[in-house]
């Protein structure tokens, strides 16, 4: 959904991953945008990254006006992210205006105003030729000076100067409540045209960060809250634009085989390269086995296994039991196993860590076993967002992905994650137990294979010491018995 966009207000791309999507191109160019958030919501890093990306991507210098932390602390903090601010200062691409509070309060002897504020900011902007300006944060002066009228006057003049200077400005402001007034001290009246809110909401003991564009007068934007992550490396803030993701489908018609002839035959030769497949079934049906087949399906392709349920050693033992060459491929450097216990980190952190591992190894295929473990730690919404972001990332990277998920009901039936995940996947392989002539057998069916014809028959399969064997379709109409829904 977007608001009407009359001509006149151009946008300036921030360079912050995902922000251009939700802001329909970026911040209103040559104007000020209020960035409001509670303490610890990521305002300062968001603001700093606005400048960092300007320098890194467009060689556009920036000025950081700090009312809170002194420049030395900011340099140190962001040096830890790999942002060489001191270097940029030396090159004339970054300038601080240091309005951080003095340790000692000066004596007051008569009338005064904040007369050096504008000259210092204007000087810094002109000195580096800044196109971007960050003010962090606007309300601070209220806690330093008791004369509210004077502070109001100074803030009014400051924002008028920002407009006059023609820079694109991001002005942070503190909020006390996540869903209360826009900002403390009513500072939003000075920056009323565009407001972006950062939130951090606790879900159980997990923190969830979101960004919402409240308004952007005179130009369009996306509505609603979008999750974002704050990474501890140079990537910084990364916004996850949910609705943007279902747009791109794998364009490839190449296939990534399982290496099991019968299974590949069911999928018209293999999974589409760059597509996402969900293998769903109750405990013990063979989801992990199918995942392991996929992981070893093409010895010539780099393959990564992300394990959330079992340790790497257990996975190797399982694979050895099925005669699948995990250890051999690991020795060749064509397979990597990343085992992680989801309870140890927030979903957002898992996302960042997985992306890093994938960027370093550059696999052609990724197997995730299993998503069910992740579901335990996040709220449903957080889980869905995690999945969307992960799937989007894998797809963008052209990686063929197989994810497994558990269904607690032995006879099937939809569980939340299945419904959530199925809308994001190209192919679903369902595994079920079924009773046939008083014996429990395993059944398998390939559902919803985008972009190709697949065999929709429910087939019996067995697990052998050579891995999976897929047999003939069950006789008769076993659909209702199995609880399968034909796709």
């Amino acid at each position: 959904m977007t608001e009407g966009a009359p001509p006149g207000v151009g946008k300036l791309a921030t360079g912050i991953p995902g922000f251009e999507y939700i802001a329909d191109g970026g911040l209103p160019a040559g104007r000020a945008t209020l960035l409001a958030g509670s303490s610890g919501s990521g305002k300062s890093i968001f603001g700093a990254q606005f400048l960092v990306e300007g320098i890194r991507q467009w060689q556009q210098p920036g000025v950081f006006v700090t009312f809170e932390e002194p420049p030395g602390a900011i340099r140190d903090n962001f040096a830890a992210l790999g942002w060489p601010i001191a270097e940029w200062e030396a090159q004339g691409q970054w300038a601080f205006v240091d309005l951080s509070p003095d340790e000692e309060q000066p004596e007051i002897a008569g009338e005064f105003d904040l007369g050096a504020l504008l000259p210092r900011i204007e000087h810094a902007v002109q000195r580096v030729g800044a196109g971007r300006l960050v003010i962090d944060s606007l309300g601070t002066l209220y806690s330093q000076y008791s004369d509210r009228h004077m502070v109001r006057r100074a803030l009014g003049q400051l924002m008028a100067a920002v407009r006059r200077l023609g820079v694109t400005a991001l002005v942070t402001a503190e909020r006390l409540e996540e869903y209360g007034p826009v900002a403390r001290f009513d500072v939003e009246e000075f920056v009323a045209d565009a407001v972006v809110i950062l939130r951090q909401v606790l879900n159980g003991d997990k923190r969830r960060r979101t960004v919402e564009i409240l308004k952007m007068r005179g130009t369009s934007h996306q509505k609603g809250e979008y999750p974002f992550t704050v990474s501890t490396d140079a990537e910084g803030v990364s916004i996850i634009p949910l609705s943007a993701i279902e747009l791109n489908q794998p364009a490839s018609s190449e296939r990534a085989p399982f290496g099991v002839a019968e299974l590949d035959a069911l999928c018209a030769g293999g999974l589409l390269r760059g597509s996402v497949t969900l293998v769903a079934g109750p405990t013990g049906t063979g989801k992990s086995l199918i995942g392991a087949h996929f992981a070893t399906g093409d010895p010539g392709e780099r393959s990564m296994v992300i394990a959330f349920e079992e340790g790497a050693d257990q996975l190797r033992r399982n694979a050895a039991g099925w005669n699948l060459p995990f250890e051999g491929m690991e020795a060749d450097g064509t397979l990597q196993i990343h085992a992680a216990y989801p309870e140890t980190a927030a979903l957002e952190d898992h996302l960042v860590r997985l992306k890093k591992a994938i960027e370093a190894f550059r696999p052609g295929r990724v197997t995730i076993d299993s998503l069910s473990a992740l579901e335990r730690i996040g709220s449903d919404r957080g889980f869905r967002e995690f999945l969307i972001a992960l799937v989007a990332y894998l797809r963008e990277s052209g990686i063929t992905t197989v994810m497994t998920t558990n269904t607690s009901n032995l006879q099937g039936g939809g569980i939340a994650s299945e419904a959530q995940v199925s809308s994001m996947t190209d192919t679903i392989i369902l595994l079920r137990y079924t009773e046939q002539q008083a014996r429990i057998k395993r059944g398998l069916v390939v559902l919803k294979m985008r972009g190709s014809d697949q065999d929709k028959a429910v087939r019996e399969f067995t697990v052998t010491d050579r891995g999976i064997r897929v047999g003939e379709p069950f006789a008769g109409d076993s659909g209702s018995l199995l609880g399968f829904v034909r796709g």
Partner: protein
Amino acid sequence: MEKYRLKLYVTGRTPRSQQAIDNLRRLLEEEFAERYELEIVDVLEDPQQAEAHKVLATPTLVRDLPPPVRRVIGDLSDRHQVLLGLDLQALGEGDHGGTDHD
């Protein structure tokens, strides 16, 4: 003996700037004649110096020497606060050899 080195930061030629300059000159001539150096900095002309010394409020009077650096803000109409803020009185008292005549 060591002189006070003082800097007065003002913003342009406003009445308040002028008032601060007048107040300060009068005080210095009356109490510290020959024992001070005063530089007046207009932050509109030299914003870099205001940045370097973290001056936000104007007028701001800074005592650079002797250390430690001390600051007073305002139009300096309150002479007692100026002396207190710059810790000028202590040295003056030392020179006059007493504390009870003020």
